[in-house]
Structure formats: C-alpha cells, structure tokens
C-alpha cells in the first residue's frame, strides 16, 4: 500500500516504530523529501534509527541515516574518504555524552576541585569547538549539537543546590558556553537534550539493563522522546516558521458566545472554566512576543467584539495586539485570503485556530496550504495543542523576527495612507523612504542568508544560501549586496539582496535578486538594481546577464528584466550592456549610499 498522509503515523512501542520505519525505508510512503543525516556520537547511537526515521517521516522527510563508529568525531572529519563524507550529509548531529567524557563528572562530581572542573569544562568546549572548526568549509549541511545533561541523577541525593559550585550549575554553565560557540558557527544549532532528559525524568531516562548489558544509554521511553524532539529540531533548522495565527473568538479566546450569552456572561478569569481561556490567551501573547502576527476571523457583530475588548480590562490579549480583524458573516476562507493579502504573507505562513470543526474543514478544503490546528474538544487542552503544533518552531530568533509586529503595524499605517494618496508615486513620496546599502559583512550575513532562505515571491532565482555558502561566494569574488530601508513609519531593516559574480571573466551574471514581501511595490527593486549595476560598472564590468527561474511562487517577477531595459536572449536569460546605460532612479527615495 502506498501511503501519502504522514501526519497520522502514530507509534507508541519500539515494535511499531521499527515496523513503520521499515515501511518508510521500503518506499511505501510517497512524496517525502529526501534528507541525509549523519550522526556522530560518543556512544553507539544506531538504536535511535527507527525513531528518527519514523518521526522525520511524520514531518514529511525521508531520511537516510549514517552513524559514524562511536567516538570517531575527528577521524571521520579528517579522513576525506570516510563514511561520513560518503554519506553526503544535509544535517550533521553531534552528541557528546558527559558520562562518556568523564564518568566521574556524573557519579563522583565532588571529587573534583574547582580548578579541575574549570579545566574539564574548557577541555570539553575546546573539543567541540575544534570539531566545528574542522567541519567548516568541508560540509554545507546544518550542524546540530546536543547540549549536555546528566542521565541518572546528580552525584549527591539532596544537597547539590547549596554547594558553592554545584553539579547543576556546572552543567548550566557548560550549556551556556556551548550555545555561545554554536551561535558563532554558521548554520549551527543546539538540540536541547538537557530539556528532553528533564521532560522524561532521571528516573525513567536510563534502563539499567540496556545500559550495562549493551551500553545503550537510553530507555525505550527516552529513545521515543529523543526521536520526537530531535526530529522537531532538525525540521526547525530546515524550514521557515509560520508568521501569523488567525484566531476565532467565541469559545476560542473566551468561553461562550457574546451574541447569544451577552458580554457579561462569557467565561474568562481566574476560576474554572474561564481560567482555561485565560491560559490560552497567555499562550497567544507569548507567540505575539516572539514576533507572530495575530489576526481574527470571527462570525460576529463587530460592535459587540469591540465592546468586549474595551470593557474587559482583564483580557490578556488586547485589540492593539491584532494586525487585522475580520469580523463579519462572510465565509472564513475568504477572510483568511484577505488577511494574507493585507499582511502580504503567503497562506503557507498562516496557522488557523478555531474551535468549530465545521469551519476548520471548510477552510482546509478551500485553502489546502494553510496550517489548520486540530483543536481539542476541551479548552483545557487548547494551549498544549498550539504549543505542540510545531508550525511556529524556530531555533534562532533574529532581531528582525522579534520586531515583526512593529514592522507590520507600520505596514498597516502605510496601507491606510495608500488609500488616501492619489497616485502611487505620490503615496511613495509621502513615505520619505531612506535607503542604505552595503556589501555583506559579519554583521549582516545572517540576515542576508535568512532572506535567501525565506523569500519566495519577489525572488528571481530562488537560490537558497547558508551563511557558509555566502562566505564561500564572497571569498571567490562574488558581489553580495544588501539594502535596508527606513521611512516615516519605521525602520524595516534589511529587506533586499542582490548577488552577482563574474566567474566568466568577460561578463557579470546576476545570481540572486530578491526583495522581502514586506516592501514589494515600493520601487525599491529599481533602486537595488541601480546600485548593483553601478557597483558592477565600478568594477569595470560592462556586460550583465540576468536570469529568471520560475518556481510557481515568483510569477510576479517574470517580466522583471524586460521592465528594466534588459534585452531578452531566451525565455530565462536577459542581457544588458552597461556601456550605454544611464541611471534612472526614483527621485522620491533618498539614498544614503553604501556602508
């Protein structure tokens, strides 16, 4: 039987995991994305295979796993003919168990002096760092490093917290320093192994029989827990998190129906059942604070909704937190489409949460790309359902992400201004845009890489580049430009990227040209192109080629080069002679020049 619905895979026992993983490896599931994962560890990790294969398939990946022989980190990386390189990893897992580094750290911690512990810590971190350095430039995959945790219990039963240098503190500091090292390494992330051990608990983490008989340091329950959380982490390292949640109101943000029960009779507060809704609002606010946009689609009377938000001072979510409100009697699929248009984000970046099964099914059938949460019957479970949905998972939040709500608030003001303005240029002139551009450097490279990874619509070639890819390109002489913009309503940060190279000595090729959807339609594409061409000319380039690679999402830029005076060579290639080129820049955008 060929299967294509992976999210319903539900395994509870090792037998079921092994069975399903065999089916997946036997090609019985279609439409999964291929992914090579290499695992390097200080112990034999093969036992995790069925759990990782199955949990990754649930998340739409067909993984091929390679396990390096245990404790051969350096050997595998230094030997260019090793199985590790042969496996061509897209994702590299690195796990040092603290017990494998030094048993005494785990079960005889107080035998160490403070100084010895300091040296131990340095030794461990130096080893991780040197492995990361060895990997640099040799592989292009994402690197995921497990952080540290003890497995069974602390060395002493009850008095660790009051020690001047406690065992728990040792591990916390080790993990903090490890995170700092990983943050400095391109495309490197932490798998929060420490949290997984805590979640399962010391009492259940190890099965002594498996550990002492076969050196397998995880019980069955732990193997399953690692499979789940590790897969979630791997996927978060590869995919873009959703940007917006569309919420229903009645029986979702509060209990009851305001149109029927009346504003004063709804359930919300510190007592059951209202407290369940309060918790859910807190979960939503937590998402908001991480940069997720909030929107409403509710079949309701708008006046009642405004009344309730204005009168209930105790609501955790206030009107000001919402980017868009669609309160009407139209069908919700249409409302969500409008929300996506107004916020300028794709449907595949939106999550829908509604207690009504009917609404969810209707929306799912009309908008298949949308992420629809299977809302549980009881409001007590709402928060957990949303937290475990994974659509908002990310491993690293940039400053731009955190401030997204601020940017979009300004976007809303721009939107209302555009209704008042007469012509588009007139409108754009009122924005007082100020553009800054620059060549990519250590500060900007993370954001530039992120834009190549995330941008779909205004993206001529949709080439995805990790930080290390970009570093390599710059070293090989490519021109990597970014553009940021600021206007009356705020600073949008870096929103444009252009990359060109002249690896063919007699002409330059525009490899990448993209703008964040946040600023499409503001003529910044023209500005970015001008700056790019000027820079190429300054480097004595005269012939420039541009290409367009169609993806199904970037139709809007198919005529970009035609519109900008390039001469069409073929369906996907255009040419421009810079020796006869004269700059034509929109005069309402102030250029602050290159930094």
């Amino acid at each position, binding site marked *: 039987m060929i299967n294509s619905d992976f999210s319903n895979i539900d395994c509870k*026992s*090792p*037998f079921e995991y*092994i*069975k399903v993983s*065999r089916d997946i490896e036997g090609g019985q599931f279609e439409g999964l994305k291929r992914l090579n994962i290499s695992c390097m560890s200080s112990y*034999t990790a*093969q*036992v995790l295979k*069925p759990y990782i294969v199955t949990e990754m398939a649930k998340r739409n990946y067909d993984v091929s796993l390679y396990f390096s022989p245990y404790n051969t980190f350096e050997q595998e990386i230094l030997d260019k003919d090793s199985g590790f390189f042969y496996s061509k990893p897209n994702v590299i897992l690195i796990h040092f168990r603290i017990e494998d580094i030094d048993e005494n750290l785990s079960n005889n911690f107080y035998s160490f002096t403070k100084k010895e512990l300091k040296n131990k810590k340095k030794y461990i971190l130096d080893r991780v760092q040197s492995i990361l350095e060895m990997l640099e430039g040799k592989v292009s995959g994402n690197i995921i490093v497990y952080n540290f945790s003890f497995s069974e219990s602390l060395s002493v039963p009850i008095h660790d917290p009051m020690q001047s240098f406690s065992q728990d503190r040792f591990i916390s500091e080790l993990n903090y320093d490890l995170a700092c090292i990983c943050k400095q390494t391109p495309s490197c992330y932490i798998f929060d192994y420490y949290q997984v051990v805590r979640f399962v608990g010391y009492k259940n983490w190890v099965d002594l*029989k*498996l550990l*002492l*008989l*076969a050196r*397998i340091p995880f019980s*069955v329950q732990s193997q399953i827990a690692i499979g789940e959380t590790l897969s979630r982490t791997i996927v978060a390292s590869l995919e873009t998190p959703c940007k917006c949640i569309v919420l229903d109101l009645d029986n979702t943000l509060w209990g009851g129906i305001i149109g029927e029960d009346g504003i004063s009779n709804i359930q919300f507060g510190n007592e059951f059942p209202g407290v369940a809704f309060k918790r859910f609002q807190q979960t939503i606010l937590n998402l908001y604070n991480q940069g997720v946009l909030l929107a409403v689609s509710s079949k309701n009377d708008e006046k009642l909704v405004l009344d309730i938000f204005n009168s209930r001072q105790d609501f955790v979510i206030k009107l000001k937190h919402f980017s868009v409100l669609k309160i009407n009697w139209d069908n919700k699929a249409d409302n969500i489409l409008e929300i996506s248009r107004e916020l300028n984000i794709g449907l595949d970046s939106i999550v829908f949460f509604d207690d009504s099964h009917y609404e969810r099914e209707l929306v799912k059938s009309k908008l298949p790309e949308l992420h629809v949460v299977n809302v549980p019957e009881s409001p007590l479970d709402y928060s957990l359902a949303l937290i475990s949905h994974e659509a908002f998972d990310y491993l690293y939040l940039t400053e731009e992400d955190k401030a997204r709500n601020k940017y979009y608030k300004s976007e809303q003001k721009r939107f209302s201004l555009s209704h008042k303005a007469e012509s588009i240029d007139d409108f754009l002139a009122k924005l007082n845009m100020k553009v800054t551009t620059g060549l990519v450097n250590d500060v900007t490279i993370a954001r530039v890489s992120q834009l190549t990874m995330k941008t779909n619509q205004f993206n001529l070639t949709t080439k995805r580049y990790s930080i290390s890819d970009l570093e390599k390109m710059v070293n090989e002489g490519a021109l990597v430009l970014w553009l940021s913009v600021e206007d009356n309503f705020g600073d949008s940060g870096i929103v444009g990227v252009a990359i060109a190279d002249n690896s063919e000595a007699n002409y330059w090729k525009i490899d990448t040209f993209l703008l964040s959807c946040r600023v499409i339609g503001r003529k910044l594409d023209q500005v970015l192109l001008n700056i790019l061409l000027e820079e190429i000319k300054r480097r004595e380039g005269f012939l420039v080629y541009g290409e367009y690679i169609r993806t199904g999402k970037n139709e809007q830029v198919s005529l970009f080069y035609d519109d900008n005076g390039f001469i069409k060579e073929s369906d996907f290639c255009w040419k421009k002679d810079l020796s006869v080129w004269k700059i034509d820049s929109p005069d309402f955008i102030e250029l602050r020049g290159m930094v």
Partner: protein
Amino acid sequence: MKEGDEKILYEIISKILDIPIDNINDDSSPDTIEAWDSLTHLNLIMAIEFEFKIKLSPEDSMDMLSVRLIKIILEPYLQ
C-alpha cells in the same frame, strides 16, 4: 506458549529481523538469520518487553539466542 502469544512473537521477529513469518521456525537463530546481530537482538528484547508488558532479567535477555529459547524463557513471564 499460547497461539495468540506465538503469533505476536512471530510478527515481532519477522518485522525486526526483516524476514517473512513463514521462514521463522523454532531453530531460527543468529546462525540462520543474517539480520540477527547484537543491535537487532536488543531491538527484539525491547519489543518483546513492550508488547508483552514484561521486564526480562539481564541473564534471560542475553540467553534468548534462538526462537526455541525465546519461547522457553518467555513461558514463566507469561503465566
């Protein structure tokens, strides 16, 4: 061993060692089944413990080195 238990046991062995149920008999062992190595042996132990909801002693886990032995060892656990 009850017929129902034997059926479950054979399904476990078949899936974990990747061989058809019909090819399993009492004499099947690491010597006759290629995939039966130290790792799959552990997978067998974990699966048997989970499916039959039992905890095998370390010695018993090590001794289960043929289908016949598995059945004999399991007998008292399944009483």
